[in-house]
């Protein structure tokens, strides 16, 4: 049946934003200089932030991250959730004023999946019919299940039921792309257009007059400053050069000058920091050993070290995923001492004791937080158990290579969801998945995931996934450490943002109210 | 005297910091305007240090005091700061070793112009013109060829002229010249002294000239003073002092004047028939700097022969290429053409490896002894270095004995083996260089102005030593000198170098009796030998 998309409250908020006329300048930080402004090629989170300003998918997200109509006015799907139709806005325009039609959309999807584009995120589009084959070059682009049914109507066919398709279509990989001869970066259709880009220095954006909701955009000039050094970001925020500072490190947040404390915003993020255990190689190939380590880890200590006491993680899938019921392992409530005693027993059973300590290496990539966590974890194990941990840090690419080649025993890893879906996390451990650096291979687990994917009923699907997670945590190829939070500083005069599970805050919803003249 | 004296110095005392007997004990001196005083004294008597003390520029480690010092009636304390205003403007000083005294990295024209600007307040352009005029005045013509040169691109005599011009240019009331003619040929020396004295008369400058050339001083100075035992032991009109020296120290110096050559020419040991050294068509070119090219070669088509046991005197005006020849013989400057045969080997273009075995047989005493001594080595090590290199002497003890012997032979206290070169006087340094060469017992010794800084007595002794070595050991000598008397005394054959080639050569007696070339005649005339 037809499904009317939720009409968001933000529209109401928008009305007030138009009324308050400080169409001023907003300066936001980026923790990384975007490597690309092509939605199909960009990979980083930070590039994603900018792309959401420049583009709009068929579906957009409101300030709370809920899908709302974007370039499409409305959509409908069949009861199987496999065949979707999107009604395009007649007034949709590219930023140069040319109309944006269903043909453009078809071309864009094909481009995203074209092997020549070499997009990494295109994997996310694989639920679309033939997408996987097209992506591997095994089928022609024309085979793709995205079809124009007239200039303003688009049909999307899926391989398997996917109730969450709208959320998927709000991702940059599903943004429309039109290459222009004039600039290296493609043309967009979003609330803002790029006015200037100086690598390493800044990106300057101005409102896009052809945007369908241009009247609601309350920011007159949007500047993104790539600041890779957290301390530098903080300094510039303190100096009044930034209105919005992203990715403040835990240590900096802990030591914030008192006048800035009210501007600190800490929000949960759908993401988990964990240790991956190499299950293909002794000594961690032994599940008893893995479980012992999972039991004995003092997560609370680490979480409080990082200043996020409530976010110690016992599960891989973070709390807050819609439809998902967290699956904490049975020992969750036990006191640490008791858990550690059990761990000792497990290790003893595996043949490790004071005379023959368990020796393994924990690798992490460079980073102050990673280092602190690794030291703390190593300390919490070696204090309670006959364990000797060798810490080893590496620069990122070398680390990835080591991890991928499974040349270490334990490594640090983390995952932030693209979609609010447990599968996004669990698929990392499917056997044969290129991301499965643990070498975890459990046919049962794989089967549970396959079941969930074929399931059209959201509730049943969630159950299969919960089941899979339980099984995963029992085998413990992964030791969750903590669930990510985002820490940022936001000026009090920046209004309109709302907490949301994916922690995305496009400037379309922001406005500036009551900024003191001195801070302009 | 109605006019106050230019310099009044009473009771100058110079000693090492802390300990020991003073080097200069009680020096008292007075100079009237326009007066020229010749100061003589044994090498190491303290002449140079006294001069430096007046400017407050003693080397570190030495201290000076005086009871009274006044310049043109104004009294000065013996402190460096107090004396600063005197420097250059009040007292001009010509340093004993011009190579060490000129800034090695600045063109001489620049250094001259700088002094003129500082003391005469000339503008840049005017200072440059005046610098050129001064170069011409001291005999460096055409000045344009010299203004832009650096000290190392000048001959010893040319440097000395620059040093004199530097001291004269500001027109100080007192000029102290420390052996200002030691590197000059007799006519030039005469000319320079005439210039000095002339300027002194004209401007009322007082002149204090330190020198070992007694005749020269006698000719130009009214008065001579003798420094010995740290004080002026005798002072009198020049002719009087030379004619009737009273003090033993004076007598020693005066009596040391050379007599006639020790024997008639040709009566030496049998001279080997085959020449030890034969130079043919030797050509040495100037080093091309930047874009400058095509200047004439320094030596061109030079021919020379020298037999074992023979002493060849090489004389010639300053800048004629004597030093260059000496260096070319030793392979220290690149030879552009010609051949040098020594003891059966060809030296031109020889590799460093090929040179090594020959080094011992072929030794040199450099013209600027100070610069040729490694400043970080003690004298003993300097003299002993050749012994170690060539493996002479069985052990360290024997080598040390040889070093002491060589030092003694060169007229030095063997105990100074522990000194560093900078602690020695100019003459002492020269003797170290001689000792270094002698210690190796070479077959051919090149002496480039090797006796110029020695007092007459020492000079006589060393000449005698060289002559003895020549006769007894068959040492061959290439004796480069401006001291024609010494050359004539030592050498049976004399060659005259001019403009890079030998213009005349022949047996001493013939050359002295009947000089053929005008250059020779001029040299002889100025030395009072013609």
């Amino acid at each position, binding site marked *: 049946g037809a499904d009317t998309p939720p009409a968001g409250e933000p529209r109401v908020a928008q009305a007030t934003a138009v009324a308050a006329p400080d169409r001023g300048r907003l300066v936001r930080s980026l923790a990384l200089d975007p*490597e*690309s*402004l*092509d939605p199909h090629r960009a990979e980083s989170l930070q590039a994603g932030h900018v792309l959401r300003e420049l583009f709009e998918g068929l579906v957009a997200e409101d300030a709370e991250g809920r899908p709302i109509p974007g370039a499409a006015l409305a959509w409908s799907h069949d009861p199987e959730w496999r065949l979707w139709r999107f009604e395009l806005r007649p007034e949709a325009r590219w930023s140069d004023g040319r109309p944006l039609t269903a043909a453009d959309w078809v071309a864009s999807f094909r481009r995203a999946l074209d092997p*020549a584009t*070499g997009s*990494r*995120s295109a994997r996310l589009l694989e639920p679309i019919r033939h997408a996987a084959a097209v*992506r*591997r070059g095994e089928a022609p682009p024309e085979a793709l299940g995205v079809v124009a049914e007239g200039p303003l109507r688009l049909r999307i066919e899926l391989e398997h039921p996917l109730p969450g398709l709208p959320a998927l279509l709000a991702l940059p990989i599903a943004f429309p792309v039109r290459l222009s001869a004039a600039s*290296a*970066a493609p043309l967009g259709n979003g609330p803002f257009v790029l006015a200037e880009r*100086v*690598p*390493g*220095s*800044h990106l300057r954006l101005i409102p896009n007059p052809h945007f369908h909701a241009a009247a609601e955009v309350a920011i007159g000039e949007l500047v993104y*400053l790539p*600041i*890779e050094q957290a*301390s*530098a970001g903080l*300094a510039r925020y*303190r*100096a009044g*050069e930034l209105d919005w500072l992203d990715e403040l490190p835990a240590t900096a947040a802990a030591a914030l000058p008192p006048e800035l404390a009210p501007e600190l915003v800490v929000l949960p993020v759908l993401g988990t920091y964990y240790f991956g255990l190499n299950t293909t190689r002794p000594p961690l190939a032994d599940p008893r050993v893995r479980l012992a380590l999972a039991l004995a880890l003092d997560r609370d200590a680490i979480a409080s070290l990082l200043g996020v006491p409530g976010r110690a993680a016992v599960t891989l899938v973070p709390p807050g995923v819609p439809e998902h019921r967290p699956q904490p392992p049975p020992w969750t409530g036990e006191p640490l001492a008791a858990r550690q005693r059990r761990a000792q027993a497990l290790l003893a059973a595996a043949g490790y004791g004071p005379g023959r300590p368990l020796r393994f290496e924990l690798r992490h990539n460079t980073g102050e937080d990673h280092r602190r966590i690794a030291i703390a974890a190593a300390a919490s194990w070696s204090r309670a158990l006959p364990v000797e941990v060798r810490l080893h840090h590496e620069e990122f*690419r*070398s680390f990835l*290579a080591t991890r*991928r080649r499974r040349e270490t025993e334990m490594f640090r*890893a983390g995952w932030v969801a693209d979609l609010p879906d447990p599968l996004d996390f669990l698929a990392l451990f499917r056997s044969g998945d*290129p*991301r499965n650096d643990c070498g975890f291979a459990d046919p049962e687990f794989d089967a549970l995931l396959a079941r969930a994917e074929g399931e059209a009923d959201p509730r049943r699907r969630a159950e299969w996934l919960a089941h899979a997670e339980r099984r995963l945590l029992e085998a413990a190829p992964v030791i969750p450490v903590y669930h990510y939070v985002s820490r940022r500083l936001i000026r009090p005069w920046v209004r309109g943002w709302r907490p949301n599970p994916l922690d995305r805050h496009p400037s379309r919803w922001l406005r500036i109210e009551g900024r003191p003249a001195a801070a302009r | 005297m109605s006019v106050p004296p230019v310099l009044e110095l009473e009771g100058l005392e110079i000693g090492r910091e802390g300990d020991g007997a003073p080097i200069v004990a009680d020096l008292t001196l007075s100079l009237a305007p326009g007066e020229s005083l010749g100061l003589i004294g044994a090498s190491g008597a303290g002449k140079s240090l006294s001069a*430096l003390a007046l*400017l407050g*520029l003693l080397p570190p480690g030495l201290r000076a005091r005086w009871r009274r010092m006044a310049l043109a009636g104004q009294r000065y304390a013996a402190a460096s700061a107090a004396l600063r*205003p*005197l*420097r*250059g403007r*009040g007292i001009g000083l010509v340093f004993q*070793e011009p190579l*060490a*005294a000129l*800034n*090695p*990295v*600045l063109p001489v024209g620049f250094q001259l112009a*700088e*002094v003129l600007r*500082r*003391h005469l307040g000339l503008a840049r352009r005017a200072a440059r013109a005046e610098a050129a005029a001064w170069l011409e005045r001291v005999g460096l013509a055409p000045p344009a060829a010299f203004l832009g040169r*650096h000290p*190392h691109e000048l001959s010893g005599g040319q440097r000395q002229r620059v040093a004199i011009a*530097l*001291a004269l240019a*500001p027109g100080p009331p007192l000029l102290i010249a420390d052996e200002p003619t030691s590197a000059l040929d007799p006519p030039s020396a005469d000319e320079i002294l005439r210039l000095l004295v002339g300027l002194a008369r004209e401007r009322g400058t007082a002149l204090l000239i330190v020198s070992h050339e007694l005749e020269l001083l006698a000719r130009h100075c009214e008065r001579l003073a003798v420094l010995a035992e740290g004080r002026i032991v005798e002072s009198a009109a020049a002719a009087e002092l030379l004619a009737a020296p009273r003090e033993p120290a004076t007598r020693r110096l005066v009596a040391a004047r050379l007599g006639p050559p020790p024997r008639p020419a040709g009566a030496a040991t049998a001279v080997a028939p085959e020449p030890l050294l034969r130079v043919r068509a030797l050509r040495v070119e100037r080093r*091309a700097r*930047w*874009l400058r090219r095509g200047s004439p070669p320094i030596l061109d088509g030079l021919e020379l022969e020298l037999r074992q046991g023979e002493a060849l005197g090489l004389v010639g005006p300053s800048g004629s290429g004597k030093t260059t020849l000496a260096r070319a013989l030793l392979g220290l400057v690149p030879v552009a053409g010609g051949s040098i045969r020594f003891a059966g080997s060809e030296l031109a273009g020889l590799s460093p490896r090929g040179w090594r075995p020959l080094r011992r047989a072929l030794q040199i005493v450099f013209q600027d002894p100070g610069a040729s001594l490694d400043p970080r080595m003690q004298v003993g090590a300097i003299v002993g270095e050749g012994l170690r290199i060539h493996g002479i002497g069985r052990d360290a003890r024997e080598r040390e004995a040889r070093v002491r012997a060589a030092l003694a032979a060169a007229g030095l206290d063997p105990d100074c083996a522990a000194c560093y070169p900078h602690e020695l006087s100019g003459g002492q340094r020269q003797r170290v260089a001689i000792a270094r060469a002698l210690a190796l017992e070479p077959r051919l010794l090149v002496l480039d102005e090797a006796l110029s800084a020695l007092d007459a007595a020492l000079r006589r002794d060393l000449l005698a030593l060289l002559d003895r070595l020549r006769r007894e050991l068959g040492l061959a000598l290439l004796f480069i000198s401006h001291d024609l008397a010494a050359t004539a005394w030592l050498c049976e054959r004399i060659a005259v170098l001019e403009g890079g080639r030998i213009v005349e050569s022949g047996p001493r007696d013939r050359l002295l009796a009947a000089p053929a070339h005008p250059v020779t005649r001029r040299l002889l005339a100025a030395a009072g030998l013609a």
Partner: protein
Amino acid sequence: MIGFLLRRLAAGALTLLALLTLSFFLIRAAPGGPFDAERPLEPELRARLEAQYRLDQPLWRQYLAFLADLARGELGPSLQYREYRVAELIREGWPVSLRLGSAALLLAVAAGLGLGVLAAWRRDRLLDRLLMALATLLQALPVFVSAPLLVLLFALTLGWLPAGGYGGGALRHLVLPVTALALPHLAIVARLTRTAMVETLAAEFVRAARARGLSETRILLVHALRPALVPVVAYLGPAAAAVLTGSVVVEQTFGLPGVGRYFVQGALNRDYTLVMGVVLLVGALVILLSLLADLLAAWLDPRIRLR
């Protein structure tokens, strides 16, 4: 002289080629590649991508292709900044680095020489000790400490200067980064100058210059300094190359769009083409500047022969 220059330039070209060759293979020997990321690519996709950038060919073929491109003045696309060519990145960034670097160099040389001369003049006195202690302190402070301290003091506490940003090259924006960039070199120049000056000040010719009544300043700045500059110039040649190509830390601390960060980012991201670009830049600079340093040394001390 002209012969010397020609010979040196020819040698420089060969040196550059050797440098590029060595770098080419060195950077490819490091583990990991430009297309590695947390989300790995499927092998077939990765192969396709690598083929696009010619990374699938045997090394020697890649090398020959690189040389052929280079001969045409082509450095290729950046592997990291997908929308940019390496030449573009350098063309945009280097003027910024050059501007900062030359100002920093000037500051380091002027102040370093000044302090060094001062210290040598007051040798072993209190001022000398203080200056040298200060120089040591400046040398001991990594830029990642000194730069934030400068910001803390002048931007946050005193509020005199902006905490970052290039501001189109406005003076206000340059003061702090230039200072941060200059400080360590300033300290080194000061120390080298002092030592060399102490040596020349003891020389006889300085005593002779004093005897001529030259002013102390002139003796220090002309007579003693000139020969003392030889080692300083030798150090400054390649140091200038480093300063003129910027510093990651300074650029990151102050948010400046120079090329300094490409050295680190290029290496960390395995952006092979970008790294070759910056190596070319630095290499050419090092070679040219060391030639310049040699010429300068020969001019400063004419006894030096250029061969």
